């Protein structure tokens, strides 16, 4: 799986939110999209998955253009989307939430089952019958990722998974992302929390006011304190 985004423009009504956003991600790679509040991270991910319809630019998966397709088609091409607001189905059980995400296996990847997901997210194990609305924020964050994985995506768009989580849970999240990377998934991670991104990401794009300002390896970003100060909250 190779995702290529070139020259993306998106609007909310008349507000021009994304201007000329380009980024790439390939299998086995974790790419961080870093930026402050309101920089356009979520909008970028939504434009890729099709929840926001891009006004210009292209999104390609393995060379096939997908922008303009409805979200369910894009999803079936192997893109998984984990929303920032989690959006679990509150009245459904954990099992029900996973069922909604279920899609056929994808060739070349080990298919996800609830049992395998409970290994990845031990907190969820034994909670299969609990209503999602009655879970803690951290548990809901795990559930929303597990639900997306049930679709057997080759690439996951993860919107601020560490937001509002206790440090222990954040550490678990680091482990989860690392093991997904080992499975050979591509991950696009939107983050404000540079420290979190530095633990998992290979490369980084820095977005500000809807434009990509900088692109570098995560090591280069770690070395460049001035850059972090200019564009990110440290």
């Amino acid at each position, binding site marked *: 799986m190779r995702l290529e985004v070139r020259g993306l423009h998106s609007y909310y009504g008349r507000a021009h939110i994304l201007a000329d956003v380009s980024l790439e991600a390939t299998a086995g790679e974790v790419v961080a999209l870093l930026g402050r509040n309101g920089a356009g991270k979520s909008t970028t991910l939504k434009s890729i998955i099709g929840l926001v319809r891009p006004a210009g630019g292209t999104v390609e998966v393995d060379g096939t253009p997908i922008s303009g397709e409805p979200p*369910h088609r894009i999803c079936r091409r192997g893109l998984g989307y984990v*929303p920032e607001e989690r959006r679990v189905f509150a009245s459904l059980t954990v099992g029900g939430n996973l069922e909604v995400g279920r899609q056929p296996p994808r060739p070349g990847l080990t298919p996800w089952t609830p049992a395998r997901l409970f290994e990845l997210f031990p907190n969820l194990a034994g909670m299969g019958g609990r209503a999602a609305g009655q879970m803690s924020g951290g548990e809901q964050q795990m559930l929303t990722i597990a639900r997306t994985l049930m679709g057997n995506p080759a690439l996951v768009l993860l919107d601020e998974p560490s937001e509002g989580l206790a440090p222990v849970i954040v550490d678990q999240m680091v482990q989860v992302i690392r093991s997904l990377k080992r499975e050979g998934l591509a991950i696009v991670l939107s983050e404000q929390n540079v420290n979190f991104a530095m633990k998992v990401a290979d490369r980084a794009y820095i977005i500000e006011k809807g434009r990509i300002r900088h692109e570098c390896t995560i090591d280069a970003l770690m070395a460049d304190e001035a850059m972090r100060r200019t564009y990110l909250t440290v």
Partner: protein
Amino acid sequence: MNDLGFYLVQALTGLSSASALFLVASGLSIIFGVTRVVNFAHGSFYMLGAYIAYTFVERLGGALGFWAAVLLAGVAVGAIGVVVELLILRRVYQAPELFQLVATFGVILVIQDLALLTWGAEDLFGPAAPGLEGTVNILGTRLPEYDLALIALSLVVLGALTLLFHRTRWGTLVRAATEDREMVGALGVNQSWLFTGTFFLGSMLAGLGGAAQLPKGGADLLMDFNILAAVFVVVVVGGMGSIPGAFLAAVLISELGAFGILVIPQSTLVLMFVVMAVVLIFRPWGLLGRPEAPGQHGQVGPPEPPLRPPGPRLRAAGLLLLAVLLALPAFADDFTLVLAVEIAIMALFAASLHFAMGPGGMVSFGHAAFFGGGAYAAALLVKYAGSPMEVALLFAPAMAGVLALLFGWFCVRLTGVYLAMLTLAFAQVGWSIVFQWGEVTGGDDGILGIWPSEWASNRLAFYYLSMLASAGGILALQYVLHSPFGYAMRACRDSVVRSASIGIDVRRQQWFAFAFSGALAGLAGGLFVFSKGSVFPDEMSIPRSFDALIMVLLGGVKTVLGPLAGAVTFTWLQDEIGRLEYWRFVLGALIIAIVVAFPQGIAGFLRARLGPWFGVREMEA
């Protein structure tokens, strides 16, 4: 006779009449949950179920044939629902909710004429269900066997739906989509098929309900509107989207009907509203429903641009229009003047509805209650007190205002579609009262011979009088809109929380706005009586409410001039089409076509083209 047996039978009778209500209401609830469309044509699907079952029963015969006919009718109606979804609704899912409603209203009209064409105007008596013609003896009182079959049917359906929603993947997807359909799409589920599937299921349930009640109630052309109001009450009381809630509410209301009739005959309507009042006060989202996040539904499209006082060119255009209207009698014939009067009255009616639903954010599906309320108030005053026209014309808006205060007290406790459904239910109660209370209102025969005073009785004088009153009413609405009251009202529409935090009593604000809007609809109704010389229950009926809705939507909800444009187009159209034999079909088809072609309304469409020239700008984001 054994008392206990009597009460038991009464209770079972209530349960059996709950079955149709439950089937139809659960279907409506399921469709709404996923597609967010309040399917007005649901009553029509119920009616079609009865008619189609009638035809099938005739063909098939026998006990097996009877039940096969009932099932087949359900499936056939489900298929019709799918056709409606695919051909019409699928094209307008992106449009504001109200356009979808108006489209489904077009479907009602089309189905009414198709049913008339196919089965004729005569009521059809339902065949008895073979093998269940008898009665059973319950502690000395007799109960028709078929009543027990209906009770069993509703329990079976309740069980089947519970299994479907909790034990199958499809059911899980539907429940998820009811919460967040966009997210379901992002998880790879094709929403289109989910929508079509729920439409099939929901319509099938309505059809089944109609088919199953055939032996008790037969089939007639009024079934569609008759069940609609009751179903809306059931859904509001039970909680939108909850199947057990629909069951509970259907049983509650039917039992009240069954026992209420014993205590105070003809009190069922009153009792129903007492129950509704109690439920709404303590659980505004219904018995088993979930509270709605504020602003979730009932939003008429994206946030509205702030209203601006009219620009100079718009004012000039208004003055020009006024000049034309003043000069019209000089070169128009009588026929044109009569039409112009009707347009003016309808414009006022539409403007009053626009006031409530556009800037007020309270969509009324039952505005005819106030139009008809004003009309009847004026007519009754003239008839029983012999008062002159001038007094009656003041009495009409006053009484309509009082009525709107009464209904509004309940309505402003709800928002969005719940509020809208409640207004429709109230209007239907009003209609039943004037329709059934023959001694006072003349019932179906209406009240005749209500003519203007001497000085206003010639065409010209009445023309100027109605122009003056309508223009005055519309300007009053405009004036209030741009007054502090209007600002506060729009603030409440845009954010309840923030309005409350700056010290606005949101409910009271909306309550008074609703009443003001109702009063002006009443003024339109009063003028209407004197222009026609008579009043009939039609003036309070659902189609009359929809006239106003269609006018507002034709004109576009977001434009203040919209109602005017809508009234002109619609009144003229109705005048042209009204002479045709199957005018409902033509009008319905036309409404559907317009909604599909101009989802912004005609004035909205024109505004996008001509607006900048008139200085009507949209706010820059």
